[in-house]
């Protein structure tokens, strides 16, 4: 068990290296540069200086080593020295766009916000999706199933782009129950949570319905039933454990997606998370920010998937962790 955990955590390091390398190179392949501006600088020298300042004039491999923090540079007196900062020291570098901030500053400001929103949305999605999924599975083929399925499908057919404004128009402007935007009190969190969570609750309900339908056909569930256990005992004590597996394996990537923020919801409700940066940095070719956020995302994802695999083994005894 502990060996397994250690192995997975150690396995994270090469993964991070690969991710940083891939995103580092990928984002530089896209046309345009961080220094393209609508208004050209007063002279072309300025852009050149800017490139030098951020070491964009060096060969790519050297830029990458510098990013990792394992490059040597001239110390200006004929010798060389190790570069300062770099990934090995946990420094994600300066942002090319937000010139007064480092990527670390932005992550430190935005990540906690995105994480709390994501977690709330996750709880909402689970809280709505799992019961709905179980209900529709048990009523499979009946009206209850059709109506429940209709709503769960509706939830993930309508994008946040539509749900958000509708919630704002109804609950925030018409009835003034919740604030329209900003992020400063628990009241402010309700609408973004629902907007973000609703879509996923639909998905979870579908997966749960499927899992439960399958589980109810399992031999041991059938046996449990034959033994004369009550319906709720069969469902919750025996079937649920297996039925929830698809949901569990979906929830790792789902949580990573949720915790790193959502562009649409953050934009709509003015939530100062990092979801907006994830999209805007790629669009704005803010190289360091792209790589930094990709790394944050990767770390979260790996940790959460690890939790999922553990949960998997815990719920389904037939899976061996190795």
């Amino acid at each position, binding site marked *: 068990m502990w060996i397994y955990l250690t192995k997975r955590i150690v396995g994270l390091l090469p993964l991070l290296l690969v991710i940083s390398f891939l995103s580092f190179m990928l984002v530089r392949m*896209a046309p345009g540069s961080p220094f393209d501006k609508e*208004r050209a*600088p007063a002279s072309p020298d300025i852009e050149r*200086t800017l490139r030098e300042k951020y070491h964009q004039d060096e060969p790519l491999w050297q830029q990458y080593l510098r990013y990792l923090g394992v490059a040597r540079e001239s110390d200006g007196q004929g010798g060389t020295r190790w570069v300062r900062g770099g990934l090995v020291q946990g420094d994600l570098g300066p942002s090319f766009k937000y010139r007064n901030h480092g990527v670390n*500053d932005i992550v430190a400001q935005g990540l906690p916000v995105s994480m709390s929103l994501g977690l709330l949305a996750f709880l909402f999605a689970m809280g709505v999706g799992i019961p709905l999924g179980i209900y529709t599975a048990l009523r499979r083929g009946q009206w209850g199933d059709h109506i429940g399925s209709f709503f769960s499908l509706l939830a993930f057919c309508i994008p946040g782009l539509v749900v958000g404004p509708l919630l704002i128009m109804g609950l925030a402007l018409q009835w003034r129950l919740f604030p329209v935007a900003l992020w400063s009190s628990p009241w402010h969190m309700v609408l973004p949570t629902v907007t973000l969570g609703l879509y996923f609750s639909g998905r979870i309900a579908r997966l749960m319905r499927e899992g439960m339908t399958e589980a109810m056909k399992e031999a041991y569930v059938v046996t449990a039933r034959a033994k004369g256990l009550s319906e709720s005992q069969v469902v919750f004590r025996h079937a649920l454990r297996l039925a929830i597996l698809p949901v569990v394996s979906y929830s790792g990537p789902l949580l990573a997606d949720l915790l790193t923020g959502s562009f649409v919801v953050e934009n709509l409700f*003015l939530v100062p998370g990092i979801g907006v940066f994830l999209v805007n940095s790629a669009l704005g070719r803010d190289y360091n920010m792209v790589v930094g956020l990709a790394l944050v995302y990767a770390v979260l994802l790996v940790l959460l998937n690890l939790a999922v695999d553990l*949960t998997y083994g815990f719920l389904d005894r037939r899976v061996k*962790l190795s």
Partner: protein
Amino acid sequence: MHSVVSASTTAPVRQFLSRIWLALLLSLLAGCARPDPPADLVVINGTEPETLDPALCTGQPDGRVAAALFEGLTRVHPKTGESVPGIAERWEISPDGKTYLFYLRTNALWSNGEPITADDVVYSWRRVVDPANAADYAGQLYYVKNGLAINTRKITDLTQLGVSAVNPHLVRVELENPTAFFLDLCAFRTLCVVHRKTIEKYGDRWLMARPLPTSGCFTLEQWKVNDRVRLRKNPYHWDAANIRSEVVDLIHLESATTALNLFETGQADIIWDKTLIPMELMDVLKERPYVHTFKYLATYFMRFNVTRGPFKDPRVRKALALSINKSRIAGHIMKAGEEPAATLVPPGTANYQAPEGLSYNPNLARKLLAEAGFPEGKGFPSFHYLFNTAKQHEQVAVELQQMWKKELGISLELRNTEWKVYLADQSAVNFDLSRSAWVGDYNDPNTFLDMFMSNNGNNRTGWKSPEYDALLDRANRMTDLKERAELLRQAERLLVVDDVVIMPLFFYAGITFYRPDEISGIWANIIDEHALYPVGKTKKADLRP
């Protein structure tokens, strides 16, 4: 077998899972920060500033915050938009218009109480032209002696810049040419005065220093990215008595609808960024008392690539320009009172009267196109219009496409790209036609016209005209404003009538939202600059529950 639970594996698993949940919950609590006390004034300022460093910032929202934090030798009069004394109390101009003496106020202080001296001014200006700082707007100091040479590394000695401290309260400035708008430049944020010691201590992250010594009316209390900047009145400012709001929040966001919602529910008092106005609703909103529209110096236009295919022929460019019904675009798509434009320089620009541009004349257009070898558009290759993705630009593009198809029988392909691809392609002149817009930096035709000089980085059309360059050069050496205006007029005629390098579409309308019975101290002016210090809530608004 399902009920067999082996204790040896579950205990660590449970422990591990519960730790992860605990960590998540803790971060949840961290995210729910304590709400700050409400501000006296909440302004929706635009998109998130890239930097608040006055020497480096280029965007309008960035500039507005920088202007509240830092002050120049002069500042913009909030009502008229003219330059009035700032850190300098008065000035003297030599008869040839090339030497300025600025007398600083003795009561001009940093927000930490230290005096602002002539050395601070000299340091701040040298910092702008110092090539190592790579300030995009260094061009604002090219009018000062040796500014260009230093910035382009022809001179390495910063002290050669034509600005010097005669004594702690007297700054002497030497210019290359008499520059009619130099006092306006002194009020511009690039030339504002910044605190040397802080910058030398903290480097690029100096704006994160707290407390941050500032020279303007406000100090920087908080800067939360993609949320808000919180400013507090600078008690040491020489004009502190006239700063009306103690704490001001500047909210940064990207969605016009969100901005409107905040304003409608009273969570924001002012919207003063044009990009955050929902344009498609302007026909309804225009009637509301809180909407204020005004003329300002900004033009929406289209660049031709004069090096490519049929667009090498000025007759083709002219035909295309003549066949666009600009009033339909200005009225149908833009609804805030935008005026159709025939010239690049907007009406109302100081010291200038624009020439008469091309009008709407589809018959002449067809004739010209036939002369150029494409009667009724036959044989005209398909060409594309480059624009960055945005509702409004797409709508304009669709209109252009249909008009040219109808009037000239030629087919335009739309090519919308994301922002950086658009910029890269535009500056590499990799397009047939390209959407463009320009907002004047100061109230003078030069801020529009110098764009199309042959070596200007903003030219982006492939058009090089020695005649145009010569006209502008001569004009900017003139001290007589009338003669200067005439030369500039000739240059603009060349640009939009004879050579048709660009096709102006409309002049933007400036828009601000505020409730006049609650907010006062904000006035419309032609450069869309609204100083923050005179803005405040009226007594009546304070009584509002």
